[in-house]
């Protein structure tokens, strides 16, 4: 589809694109630049480049404001949850796509129901359940919640396993492969694309999640990154340099991953948006 051929319309095209580019990228670039400025310059000369480049803000954020601990906490919760989600989604997706069993359709739609309901709706009963189980201020509460939010993963993996030819699985079964090794050694490697899509979607969701940690964690030493940023803002509101350093550190993992796996990110996140 090409209808912008003339020079004047091309100029308008680039003008618009660059304007939008500026609006989108400037706040992020500004955040990164401010994070390496001496702290007072962030407010006194917000538009200038730093007079001296310094990583003091990062050190201060990392040590004094406990972003370092939050980083490790987030890393722990996200990696454990991600592994569980990938395992549950691929096992469920495989069963629904490639195995025959009574109650298949019912169980599938029953599980899919979880996708149509936003997490906020059940946050109150979730809190009550975790409280009664004694899991408030315990990462198990977060991990269980994340393990239970697999509807989207199951849905995506099911569609990827559909593309694996049944004949190959049958052949492996005839050769004496157990059901488990058919799944693990043959089906999983052929559905790797699906695993990347959901790994990326869930990584962004877990790394950035705010409402669940906010509800389940009431102890600052347990803070994940989003919570630590909020605590930081509430106690250090005037110190913008270290705050910008903390914000940069929180955003760098997703931004760096995004620039390496752009296609997969766009695929995973647009698919995630469609779940409603």
């Amino acid at each position, binding site marked *: 589809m*090409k209808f*912008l051929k003339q020079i004047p319309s091309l100029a308008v*095209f*680039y003008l*618009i*694109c660059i304007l*939008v*580019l500026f609006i*989108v990228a400037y*706040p992020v670039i500004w955040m990164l630049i401010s994070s390496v400025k001496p702290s007072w310059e962030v*407010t006194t000369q917000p538009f200038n480049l730093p007079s001296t480049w310094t990583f003091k803000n990062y050190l201060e954020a990392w040590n004094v404001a406990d972003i370092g601990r939050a980083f490790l906490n987030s890393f722990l919760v996200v990696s454990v949850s991600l592994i569980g989600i990938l*395992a*549950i989604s691929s*096992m*469920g997706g495989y*069963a629904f796509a490639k*195995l*025959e069993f*009574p109650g298949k359709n019912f*169980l599938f739609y029953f*599980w899919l129901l979880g996708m*149509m*309901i*936003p997490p*906020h*709706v*059940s*946050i*109150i*009963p*979730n*809190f009550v359940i975790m409280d009664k189980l004694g899991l408030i201020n315990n990462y198990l509460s977060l991990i269980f*919640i994340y393990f*239970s*939010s697999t*509807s989207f993963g*199951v849905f995506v993996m099911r569609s990827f396993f559909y593309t694996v030819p049944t004949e190959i699985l049958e052949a492996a079964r005839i050769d004496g492969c157990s*059901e*488990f090794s058919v*799944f693990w050694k043959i089906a999983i490697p052929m559905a790797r694309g699906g695993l990347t899509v959901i790994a990326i979607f869930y990584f962004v969701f877990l790394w*950035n999640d705010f*409402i669940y940690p*906010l509800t389940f964690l009431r102890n600052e030493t347990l803070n994940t990154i*989003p919570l630590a*940023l909020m605590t930081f*803002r509430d106690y250090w509101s005037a110190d*913008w340099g270290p705050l910008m350093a903390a914000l940069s550190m*929180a955003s760098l993992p*997703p*931004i760096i*991953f*995004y620039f390496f796996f*752009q296609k997969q*990110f*766009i695929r995973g*996140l*647009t698919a995630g*948006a*469609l779940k*409603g």
Partner: protein
Amino acid sequence: MSLFKNRQTQKKYSLRAKQSQAAYSLLLPGLSMYIPFHFIPILGVFFLSMVCWEGYSFHTMEWVGLQNYKDILTDEIFWQALWHNIQFVLIVVVIQTVFSLFLAILLEQSLPFSKFFRGIYFMPTVLSLVVVGLLFSFVFSPSQGLVNTLLRMMGSENPPVWLGDSKIALFVLMGVTVWKEFGLSMFLFIAGLESIPDELFDAAKVDGANIWNVLSDIILPLIKETAYVVMIITTIGCFKLFDLVRVMTKGGPFFATEVLATRMYTQSFRYGKIGYGSAIAVVLFLITFMISAILFFIRTRGEKVEY
């Protein structure tokens, strides 16, 4: 012969039993998490919406029937919050849909650097709402923020206080939402545009159609389904709005940016009105569920047309 046949069915039968067994054991770990931590809470919220409870001991829980829903009817802040959600839907959905469709059409033309622009426009989508909220709190900070520093440099003596102004705060939140989310809608539109066969555009060119003909006769009719989907997703997003409000305004000033989710959250977790908060959650559930059902209907209908 019959013996052989029998054995075959028997083998088939045992194979099927083996498969069911494998299937159930593959589903067990997932369902054992999904049922107690996702499904039961959804039922639980309906139950909790009919009790009066401060959330600690089950002994103090009191069944009040529909009282919490009656309270909603007279809660002025609830209606204000709902109205803010609706305003969000009306403005954000229109702006985001038009803007992202416009950019999608521009960037689908594969001119030099389009891929680069697309890539950058999508970037805010991967950031957390907490980061975005804190960053824009600074951008719009009245005394030292970027926007007001710029306005003062341009000679404005009394720049607005943005998030502190109850007339403007909601619109700032809308702007930040569009900033963060339009990239996603844009890519949904790009996917929709890519599915339009090139021959249609070639034919239009041969017939001497101008941009407006192409837009109104080819693009808009064929992109309609995608547009519905984008609009519905954005609408659901506007009702789910929580993080950004919590980070940037906490619902203030004077409830000017209170929305359903924040009202639900503060009522139940700050004031210990578990029952009342749950009733708001049920309202939120019904709204988003109805909208999701429409989305599901459109998507399945769209699939039927496709094949």
